[in-house]
C-alpha cells in the first residue's frame, strides 16, 4: 500500500504544499541572498581582521568586540544612536499622534490636502531631504539664519550643522520632518478604526476630552503606537544616509552614528572585521527591540 501511494501521483494536499513551497521560493531566495547571507558573512567576518581587498583573513576571536568596548568613538556613536532613537520616538511618534488627532477630530476642511503635505517628505529620498536641509541650514545663504536674524537673535557661529552642541539636534529635526508624516498616517488609521460609538458611550459615562483620550483613544491605538515606535527605533539604529550627507558624522564625531562609523572603519580605514563587529552589535540591538515589540503587541 505504501508503495502505491509513493509511486502514484501526489495527493491534492501534497500538490498544494508543493505549490506553496514553489511560490515561496523566489522570496526565500532573495531573502537568503540579500539578507541572510550578508548577515552570516558579517557575523563570521566580525571574528576576523581583514580589509575589503585582502585575501588573508586573520582570526582574532572576540578581538573586534573588545576593541569596540575600548573605542570612545564607538560609544559616542552608540550614544548618538540612542539619542536619535529616543528623540525620534518622542518627536516622530508624539508629533505624529498629535497631528493625527488634529486631522481626525479638529480639521473639517482640506483634511486630504494637509495629510498629503505632511506625508510628502516620506516619499522623498533621504539624500534629497539632506540636501534640502543643508541649503536651509546654510550659514551664508540659508533661510533659517535669515529668519533667526530677522527675529533679532544670533544664529550659531559655527553653523547649524557645524556646531557640535547643535548638530545632533538638527539631525533630529530633519529626521522628524522627514518621518512624522508616516507616523501620522499610521496613527490616523488607528484612530479611524476606533468606532465613534465608543466615544459616545464614554461621553455618557463621563469621559470626555483628555479622559476619553486616556481611556478610549490610547488603548485603541496601543498596537499602532508600538509598531510606530519600533519602526522609529529601527530607523534610529540604522540611520546612515541622512548623517552621511549632512555632517558625515562630524564635527569631531558629534553626529557619528554606528552606521557612519562602521562605513568609515570598513571603507575608509580598511578595518572590515571591526566594522562587521559593530554591525553585529547593531543587529543584536535591533533583534532585541523586535522581540520586545512582538511581546508587547501579543500582550495587547
Amino acid at each position, binding site marked *: 500500500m505504501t508503495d502505491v501511494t509513493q509511486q502514484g501521483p501526489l495527493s491534492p494536499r501534497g500538490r498544494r504544499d508543493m505549490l506553496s513551497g514553489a511560490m515561496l521560493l523566489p522570496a526565500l531566495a532573495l531573502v537568503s541572498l540579500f539578507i541572510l547571507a550578508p548577515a552570516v558573512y558579517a557575523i563570521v567576518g566580525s571574528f576576523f581582521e581583514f580589509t575589503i581587498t585582502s585575501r588573508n583573513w586573520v582570526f582574532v576571536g572576540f578581538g573586534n568586540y573588545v576593541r569596540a568596548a575600548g573605542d570612545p568613538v564607538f560609544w559616542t556613536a552608540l550614544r548618538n544612536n540612542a539619542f536619535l532613537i529616543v528623540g525620534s520616538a518622542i518627536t516622530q511618534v508624539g508629533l505624529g499622534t498629535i497631528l493625527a488627532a488634529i486631522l481626525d477630530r479638529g480639521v473639517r476642511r482640506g483634511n486630504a490636502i494637509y495629510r498629503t503635505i505632511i506625508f510628502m517628505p516620506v516619499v522623498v529620498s533621504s539624500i534629497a531631504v539632506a540636501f534640502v536641509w543643508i541649503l536651509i541650514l546654510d550659514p551664508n545663504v540659508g533661510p533659517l539664519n535669515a529668519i533667526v536674524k530677522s527675529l533679532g537673535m544670533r544664529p550659531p557661529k559655527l553653523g547649524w550643522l557645524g556646531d557640535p552642541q547643535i548638530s545632533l539636534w538638527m539631525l533630529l529635526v530633519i529626521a522628524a520632518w522627514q518621518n512624522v508624516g508616516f507616523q501620522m498616517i499610521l496613527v490616523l488609521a488607528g484612530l479611524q478604526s476606533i468606532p465613534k460609538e465608543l466615544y459616545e458611550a464614554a461621553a455618557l459615562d463621563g469621559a470626555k476630552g483628555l479622559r476619553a483620550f486616556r481611556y478610549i483613544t490610547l*488603548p485603541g491605538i496601543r498596537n499602532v503606537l508600538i509598531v510606530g515606535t519600533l519602526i522609529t527605533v529601527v530607523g534610529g539604529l540604522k540611520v546612515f544616509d541622512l548623517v552621511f550627507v549632512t555632517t558625515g558624522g562630524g564635527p569631531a564625531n558629534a553626529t557619528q552614528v554606528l552606521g557612519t562609523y562602521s562605513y568609515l572603519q570598513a571603507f575608509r580605514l580598511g578595518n572590515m572585521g571591526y566594522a562587521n563587529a559593530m554591525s553585529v552589535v547593531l543587529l543584536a540591538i535591533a533583534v532585541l527591540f523586535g522581540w520586545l515589540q512582538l511581546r508587547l503587541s501579543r500582550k495587547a
Partner: protein
Amino acid sequence: MPSLQIDTVVKSYDSFTAIKGVSFTAEPGEFIVMVGPSGCGKSTLLRSIAGLETITSGAIRIDGRDITHAEPSDRGVAMVFQNYALYPHMTVAENMGFALKMAGRPKTEIAAAVAKAAKILRIEEHLHKTPKQLSGGQKQRVAIGRAITRAPDVFLFDEPLSNLDAALRSQMRVELGRLHAELKATMVYVTHDQTEAMTMATRIVVMNAGLIEQVGSPLDLYNRPRNRFVAGFLGSPRMNFIKGRIVAAGGRTVTIMAEGLTMPIQLQIEPDADVPAVGDVVTLGLRAETFGTGAPGQIAVPARVAVVESLGRETLIYADAGNLRTFDSESQDGYLAAHRSSQVMLRPGDPLTLSIDPAAFYLFDRNGETLRFPPVSS
C-alpha cells in the same frame, strides 16, 4: 422613577430638519417605544435626549429639570447602543463600572453595583472576560448592565436587538420586559421592528418624517390608527389598502365603490371626523386577519393564490383578486394579504374565495386621516 418631557424639540442639520417640533411625555416607569421608518428622526431624538446631539430648539426635561444643554454624563440617562459600544480593552466588570469610576466612586461601591447588575442580567460568570470573548447576546447584556450600574433616571435603547438573530431577539424581548418590570424604570426604546414595539411598549410613539404621527398603547394604535401611515406601519402583514370613491352620502353614512368589489360598501363615519363629499377619493383598509369564512353578509371575492407563506400554525396568503388590488405596497405587487390562523394546503395558482366582512373596513380620507374604525372584535 422620574418622568421625561420632550417639549417642541427641533433638530436641523444645515438645510435638513430631522425633527420638526416633537413633544411627548414619558410618565414615570413607562416603557416608551419610538418606531418609524428609517430616517424618520427617532434615533436623532433619542440621541438628543442622551445629549449626543445638540437640539436646535425646544427643551428636554427630566422630572422638571431642564437638561437641554447639560453634558451627556450629567443628564441622568444611560444608553444602550445598537452595536453594544463596549470598551474592547476592558473586562466586562470594568465596562460596567466605568461610569462609576469616572464619577470617582469608591471601588467597593463600584464592585457592589457591578455585582448587582450582573446578577440581574445573569452574567456573573463573564465578569472577568473581555468583550471579544462574548457572544452577541452576552455583549448586549453587558451593554444593558453598563446602563443598569449607573442607576440612571431614564434608560435609552437605540435598536439594541437589531444585531441579534431571531431566536435571541425574541428571548431578549422577554428579558427586557422582565427587566423593566423589575427595575420599574422609565425607558425610551427606539426600533424599526414593530414586533418589539407591540410586545414591549407601555406606549408607542409612531414617528414619520421628523414628526409624531400618533402616541398610544400598542393595541390602541393597532385598532384605532389616526391615519393611513400608522395603520400601514403597525401590523404584519401590512394592512391592505384599496382605492375607493364616495358614491353617496347621507348623514354620517357614506357609500363607497371600489374597483373589483361587486357591491357598494356602506360605512358610518366617526363622530369627530368630517364626512367626505360624494365623488371624493378615499382609501379602504382591511387587515389581513379579517378575511372571513364566507358567512352571510360577507362579500365573496374570487381570487387566485399568488404566494403562500406557511408559518407553522398559521398561514399568510397573498392572493391575486383581479381588479381588487392593494396599492401603497411595493413588495406585494397589489396582491391582497390574507391571514389564516391554521395550516392551509394551498399552492400558487389555486383558486380561492376571499370573504370580506364590510364591517371590517377602515376608511381613510384623501389625506390619509382615518374616517372610520371597525369595531374591535373580542
